[in-house]
Each structure stands twice: as structure tokens, then as C-alpha cells.
């Protein structure tokens, strides 16, 4: 009996080793595309196509030239695009976090007919694909002069409010009223109650929502492309897409260098905030 169990355990551990090997192989396949980007970002243009999967050789090695060339490709400065991307992402996410948490709290607490309408519209907006409003939204934005990086966060707040409010309302409803009542008795105004009592408790949800919004806005292509004046303002996705459409031969080596530059902040952000990101994504998916 004991023998048998031991044998079973051994087989199991053998099985685990096999599994580990399989997973390791899949893992390597998984990172290969990124490795290919890194390798090719150091290759001379003409070798990217012919020796895509080979390491740079003495002949094909381009050093840092691709990075130097890359940042001005497409007649636009890559760092400017990075700055706009960063600003739009941070400002939009901050705006969304602040205002939707306030709105969600009000909706959950006051529960008037107006609140119900707003809440219903928010849930409704979650299932509306962007193509439905892309033309009218970009037109409205231009008419109201919201077509700059400094004002586009307002558009993001409007179009992205749905999911955030939905998630916040769900959480606020689980906060017991008693705490707020205690604050009110102490003479706190509703505004102070919200910021001093509720906001600290909302922190985990705020992180989840924040992460979802950051990932969305940073990677978004079509909305800023249609709303912004793209001759002046380009975000990273717009910048990259423009490389393809620009006249002349695209330097593939330099493009890969650029892509690497574009990915690095995302990877660093991911590795730093991995736990929150994975939790946030799971929370967003389960609720959305």
C-alpha cells in the first residue's frame, strides 16, 4: 500500500517535470516575438527581412544607429509622441478615477431617478462599440475644440466612464452606511466624508480601475487618431501606424528599435505593478 502510494507520488513528480518542460518550451515560444524585436533593432535595415531570425553578425550589426535614426522617423519626434502618450494616459486616468468615483458614490448613495438613468446609460455605454460613435464623437470634439492632448482627457472621461462607474458602484454598495453616518454626525460635509472616509476604502478598486484605464488609453489608436490634429499631435500608436503609411522606404531596423522603445516602458510598468495589473484585469473581466 505504502509502496503503491510512493510509486504514485514518483509518477506524479515525473509528470510534473514533463509539464514543467512543456511549459518552459511554450514560454520560450511566447517570448520569441519580443526577442525578435530586440535582435532586429540592432540590425541594419536590409538584413531585417533576409535574416529575420538570426542574431546580428559583424556584417549586419548596426549598433545604436537604429535608435538614433528611429526617434526622428516619419518626420516626427518620437519623444514628443511619448510625451503626448504619457500625458494623455495619466491625465485621462486621473480624471476618470476622480470624477467617476465621485459620481459612483453619489449614485450608490442618493439613488434618485436621475441617478438610475445615469447608471443605466453607463452600463449601456459599455456594450457600444467605438465605431458606432467614431464619426460623431470626433466631430463633436472638433466643434468644441477638444482636439488637443490637453483636452482629450475629457473625451476619455465621457467615453470611458461606463466601466469605471460600474465597478465603483458595485464596491461602494458594499461599504456599510454606518461609517459615513458616524462621519456625518461628527459634522463632516458629504464632500469631506467622501474624500476622507470612502476614498481610502476605495483604494483597491481605484487601482484596478486605474490599471484598466491606463492600459486602454496608452494603447488606444483610433480615438486619438480621429480626435487629435495628427499633424501636430501624435501618440505612440499613431506614430507607429504613420511609419507604415509614410512615403519612401521604411527603415525596418529603425522601426524595430522604435517598437522596442515603445514596449520598454510598458514592460517595466508591468513588472513593477504585476500583482495589481493581474488583479485589476481579473476584476474588470469578471465584472465587465
Amino acid at each position, binding site marked *: 500500500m505504502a509502496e503503491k502510494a510512493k510509486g504514485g507520488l514518483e509518477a506524479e513528480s515525473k509528470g510534473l517535470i514533463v509539464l514543467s518542460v512543456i511549459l518552459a518550451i511554450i514560454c520560450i515560444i511566447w517570448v520569441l516575438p519580443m526577442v525578435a524585436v530586440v535582435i532586429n533593432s540592432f540590425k541594419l535595415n*536590409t538584413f531585417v527581412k533576409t535574416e529575420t531570425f538570426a542574431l546580428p553578425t559583424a556584417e549586419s550589426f548596426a549598433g545604436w544607429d537604429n535608435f538614433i535614426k528611429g526617434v526622428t522617423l516619419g518626420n516626427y519626434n518620437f519623444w514628443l509622441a511619448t510625451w503626448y502618450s504619457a500625458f494623455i494616459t495619466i491625465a485621462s486616468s486621473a480624471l476618470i478615477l476622480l470624477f467617476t468615483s465621485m459620481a459612483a458614490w453619489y449614485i450608490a448613495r442618493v439613488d434618485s431617478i436621475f441617478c438610475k438613468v445615469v447608471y443605466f446609460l453607463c452600463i449601456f455605454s459599455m456594450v457600444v462599440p467605438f465605431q458606432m460613435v467614431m464619426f460623431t464623437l470626433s466631430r463633436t470634439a472638433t466643434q468644441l475644440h477638444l482636439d488637443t492632448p490637453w483636452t482629450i482627457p475629457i473625451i476619455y472621461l465621457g467615453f470611458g466612464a461606463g466601466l469605471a462607474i460600474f465597478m465603483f458602484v458595485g464596491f461602494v454598495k458594499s461599504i456599510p452606511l454606518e461609517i459615513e453616518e458616524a462621519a456625518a454626525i461628527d459634522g463632516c460635509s458629504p464632500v469631506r466624508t467622501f474624500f476622507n472616509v470612502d476614498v481610502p476604502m476605495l483604494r483597491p478598486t481605484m487601482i484596478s480601475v486605474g490599471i484598466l484605464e491606463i492600459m486602454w488609453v496608452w494603447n488606444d489608436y483610433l480615438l486619438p487618431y480621429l480626435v487629435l490634429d495628427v*499633424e501636430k499631435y501624435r501618440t505612440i500608436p499613431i506614430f507607429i501606424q504613420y511609419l507604415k503609411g509614410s*512615403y519612401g522606404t521604411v527603415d525596418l531596423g529603425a522601426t524595430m528599435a522604435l517598437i522596442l522603445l515603445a514596449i520598454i516602458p510598458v514592460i517595466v510598468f508591468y513588472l513593477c505593478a504585476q500583482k495589481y495589473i493581474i488583479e485589476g484585469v481579473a476584476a474588470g473581466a469578471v465584472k465587465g
Partner: protein
Amino acid sequence: MSTKLSRRAFLGGAGLLSLSLAACGGNSGSESSDSGESSGSESTASGRVYWLNFKPEIDETLQSLAKTYSDSKGVSVKVFTAASGEYESTLTSEMDKPEPPTLFVIGNQAAVKSWGDFAIDLTGTKIAEEGSTDDFNLYDDQGRMVSQGYCYECFGIIANPDLVTKAGGDLDTIQGFDALKTLAEDIHSRASELGFDAFAPADMDDGNNWIYSGHLANIDYFYEAKADPDAWKECPPTITGDYLPNYKNLFDLVTNNAPVPPSELASGGHDPQTQFEDGKVAFMLQGSWTYDSVAAKIPEATMIPYYCGVDGEDKAGLNSGTENCWAVNSQVSEEDQNATIDFMVWLVTDPDASKELVAQLGSMPFINAQKGDNGFLNDAETLNAADCYTMDWDFNFQPNVNDYRAALVSALNTYDKDQNDANWEGVRTAFVQGWADQYQKANG
């Protein structure tokens, strides 16, 4: 009166614009064309010049020329450059201001339709008399010369004469497709022995495929238009594709006598210009705007016409054209118009001014302007002087140009993968039937 009317028309929005102007435009046009003629007599120091510039790359030069001119002549000259891609909208809003541009750009037939009524008839003006050719001027349907080309570009086959000689050929004897084909195929067959190949074909990716879908396609459009000029006064609803076999001649020659197989062109990344500049190929299809870069490496590079097997093509010239055409505003005072024309004349006759401008623009088709040092444009001039016909840019008529070209490129890619008759039929469909379909979509 006419000024007031037109202002109101502007407020009506772009859609109403052409409609309401059709009503009053005829009047204002003929009225101001008179004033245009009278401007030939004397120049006045009064009046203002406001040039709404179309080419961002020459802005700096223009600003300094404007300053020189106002300092020496005491005439106020303002140059404002519209952001690239924003010319139409900038023009629309600037025209509606109290001091609208006196000089602006009407670059193609579509613009003649929407802006022609805002331009005086340049026929017989001092500036028109300075012109060296009529090829780049635009006329409206009443025969008024609404705009005058002030610079132009050309494209064709750029050749490296040294390599041609090395291969035992002589560029001067090439005056038609057959000779070009014999030479190119000979070079290609001996490529490894010679150390260079015949053609560096442009890639088929988004950044480069206009060589085939725009420039090369002009072979068919131009010869169709040459055979039936009346049908090509504006965008024809259908085309015949009669000269598509000639397009195929040159297309096949370029793609099959190259260091890379045609099937690899689809994904791009070959950089034909570098191959040419490095002396690895004898020919490539390109335009005059590459001259500075090419001549730095191959000073003797020269441009020959698109030879494609059409009868009488020994008299063919380069494909020359422009979208840079001056129009003088008919809605401003006669004084302003005269001041503007004087400024234009100064730009193309003053040795220093025209030298500076030509250095930026390559070449200006005016009798007294300085000659440029763009070898390819000079090739075009030489051919013109030898009584060759200029192949003008009829590809500007392509309806729904993006969609039309995308389908054509895709069909060419399929053909490149396997160059058989069935796949060429796909190209023909995209080329001929695609034109009719897109014309329908755009106008129907």
C-alpha cells in the same frame, strides 16, 4: 458687390460654396480679368501682397524674400504657410477674412472647379508673358487661365550611364522599349559576372507602391488621353485600358530583371534608391526630387522617359507636372492684384531672388528665371527642346484614389507572386473596372 456676395457664400459652408459661386463667379471673374490686363502697364507702390503658401519646405526662403522685397520696394508682403495637409481648410477660412490672400494656389482640376471663380484670368498679364511653357497652367471651362505653374517635378527611368557602358550598351541609342528591354535583359542575365543588375524595383509596401499605382499607371492614362483628349478634360467615368499592355511591358521588365524576385516586393524593405546609389543596379524608376541624394553618389545619373512600346515613343519626354500653380485673387482690389503680379514678376526675373527660389524648387518654368542645377529637370528641358512630348500627370484624375490604388496594388501583388495571364486579368480588372467602380462610388 461681388466681394460681399462671395463672403456670404463662404459662410454657407463648403458644400454650398461651389453652387452659389457658380452664380456670381462668372461676373467677378471677367471683371477682374480686365483689371489683370491693365496691371501690365505700370507698377505702384501701393497695394499689398499676401501669399498663402502651399509648400512648408520653402517657407523660410519665402519669408526672407518677402522681407527683401518689402524693404527695397516699400510694398507690404506677407507670406503665410498652411500646415501640410491643411491648405484647403486654411484657404477657406483665410479667404473669408477682411484682408484675404492675394496670391494662392490652385493646383489641379478639382481645385479649378471649387476656386476658379476666385482667380483672375492671367492671360496676357506680365507674369504670364514671363512663362516659358503652357504645360503647367490650368484653365477653366471658359478658357480662362486661372493658375500658372511656378515650379514642376518630373519622373521617369533614372539610369547610371557608367554601368550601361560597362555592360557594353549606350544610353544614347535607347529611344524605345525594345532597345531598353534588350539591354536590361542582357545585364540581368550577366548580373553576377558584371557585379550589378538591371533594375532596382520599388517595393509594394504602403510607402512605395505609388511608383506602380500612380506613376507607372500614368502610361495608360496619358496615352489614352493623347488618343482622346476630349474625354480627359475631366475625370472620365470609364477608361479603356488600351495601353495596359504597355504598362505591363515596363512593369514586367522592371520586376523581372532585378536582384530580388517579384514575389518579395509585397512586404517591402529593399530600399531601391540605396541600391542604385551604391552602383548595384543600372536603372530605377524615380522622380526629380531624388536628384540631390542620387547625384551626390552618381553625379552623371540621368533620366530617360518611360519607354513602353507605344508607336512613336522615340519622341516621348519625361512625365512632368506640378500641383504648384499661382492664382491671383479676383476678390481683392485692383491695386492689390497689381502689386501681387509685380511681386511674382520680381520673384522670377530678379537674379538673386530667382536663384534663391530655384535652389529650393529645382526649376521654374520662366524665361528669365535662373537655371536650376537639378539634372533630371534639365533632362526634361533638353527633351522638351528636342520637340518631345511631355507626358503630363493624368494619374491626378484617379477616382477615390486611395481605394482605387489599394485594389490595384493588391492585384499586382498577386500577379508578382505568380506572373500568369489569369493574375494579369486581376490587374486589368482592378485597373479598368476598378476605375469605373470607384468613379461610381465617388459620383453616383
